[in-house]
């Protein structure tokens, strides 16, 4: 990270591989809920039931929690690689 900051104006091309990796992983975590929930036929069924709830209902409510975890992990990933950019912003603004 520190090494990257030393090379000036390397905003896009010269990112450390794990920075790119973190963004890709965050991207996957953020896209997953879309795919799961837009694919209605995969969960439009009655059984198995859970506490009397048809699958259709408890599955979607489960995705509320899964999505919360996804966005929380994505937040940590992105926040960690975002931070070192602030000095860059500082330099450009002057």
């Amino acid at each position, binding site marked *: 990270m520190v090494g990257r900051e030393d090379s000036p104006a390397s905003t896009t091309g010269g990112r450390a591989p794990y920075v790119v990796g973190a963004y890709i992983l965050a991207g996957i975590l953020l896209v997953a809920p879309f795919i799961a*929930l*837009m694919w*209605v036929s995969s969960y*439009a069924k009655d059984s198995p039931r859970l*506490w*009397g709830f048809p699958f259709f209902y408890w599955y979607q409510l489960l995705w*509320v929690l899964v999505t919360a975890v996804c966005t929380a992990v994505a937040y940590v990933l992105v*926040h960690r690689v975002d931070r070192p950019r602030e000095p860059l912003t500082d330099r450009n603004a002057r």
Partner: protein
Amino acid sequence: MKSGVDTVALTIVIVLFLAVTVIGFLAARWRRAEDLGSLDEWGLGGRGFGMFVTWFLLGGDLYTAYTFVAVPALMYTSGAIGFFAVPYTIIMYPLIFVFLPRLWSVSHRHGYVTPSDFIRGRYGSRALATAVALTGLLATMPYIALQLVGIQAVLEVMGVGGHGNTLVADIPLLVAFAALAAYTYSSGLRAPALIAFVKDSLIYLVIVVAVIYIPHKLGGWGQIFDSAQASLQQPNPATGKPKGSTVPTSQVYWPYATLALGSAMALFMYPHSITAVLATRNRNVVRRNASLLPAYTLLLGLIALLGYMALAAKIKPVGLDGKPNPQLAVPQLFENMFPSWFAGIAYSAIAIGALVPAAIMSIAAANLFTRNIYKEFFRPDATHAQEAKVSKLVSLLVKVGALAFVLTLDKTLAINFQLLGGIWMVQTFPAIVFGLFTRWFHRWALLAGWAVSMIYGTVEAYRVINPATKAHFGGSSAPIPLLDGRNGYIAVTAFVINVVITVALTVVLRALKAPAGHDVTEPEDYTADAGDPRVTPLPELTRT
């Protein structure tokens, strides 16, 4: 429906309502606001809200009469389709996560208060900025109309209002409207933020009691789903087909997915949602909220199921006009299930839960008008005091506009008000969200895409006829062109048309070297955070 007025419930509602109004007036002095006379103070609460307050504030404007009245009413009449509100409020979080921090950053670097300010700076296009402002203003009105219908539902179930002419029946609605207008007018966004605490506490209380006590009384969740299914399988008198089912059939897949997607895309285009976001302290408050707000979505899912509980409890809601009114299903369920005093608390939760967002929405729409229409076209040199004065006046006019929607459109299903607003609102998505990431799209192409999709969406929505009442604007789904009779939310179809036109015309206009307009933003503006240079948006903010 029991006849006469429920005195105990009504007294509790009035007491809680007055308490909230007093809080609203006191809120004007909360955190020692220096000067509510300036637009930034009145409309954005001084832009200093941290995570905790923002959580309540965002929750406060996302979960409204839509949640408590409109969604359960749709579940009650049509079954599983109404549950689309759950995927809608799930997928909006990843969506928020991706683009709102960029909007926060660029707004704070350049002092933007509305999405339209951003469009003006980004594309250098007055026409496009005005289009976005007008869309926000227009789309907010039916959303506020939904809140008014929610309040009306509570008052009707309590027996308030007369059977006689429409004027008598509407008096309680007008009283609630006047109180809302009064406290919004005097204290701005700080009022709703503080009241959101009261409102959310009430809602949590009511919902916890409702989802434990009512299923217990009705024989358990399994029993509720089974009775709801039996009831939904009965034919609809207007169409002769079953009303719906608790598990969606294959015709419902497309409408379900598109309603969820379109609603999620629309939500953060509304001026009021953006106001709440810009009122946060730094760019990450929004992201951290994105992983905390799902608590509200769980709640919303359980509230939606109140519609099934009403079916299982054999509730047949009939309005004061003698016609069936599904919006009354949940308040009526509360009346039948709860003792009067607790029904009163539950009604208050619904009513206050409609008032708060209505206040936030009208303030945001008013800011939009003042900044992007009044200052842009009428008084470019307006003082801050003049701006605040115009905003307050317009916030009142917006509520009057909402009232006009209630009185003129078909209100068989109140959710269609919000969905109609969504059809319009989504059409600003390309200009705003795409614009946060790229300047490739041409401003004229965006304007053309917006214009065509607005017309398409409005015409399609007008053409949907309610089979029972034969009224126009009877629904929000229509056959998707080229998709062989499949139905979908008109907002999404119109959005696709919008994007296709925008891309095609951008290619043409770029080839012709049409003037792209001046972009005042720079790439690093989109990642700036509090503490970075130039993140001191407006002089008002530093004047503390």
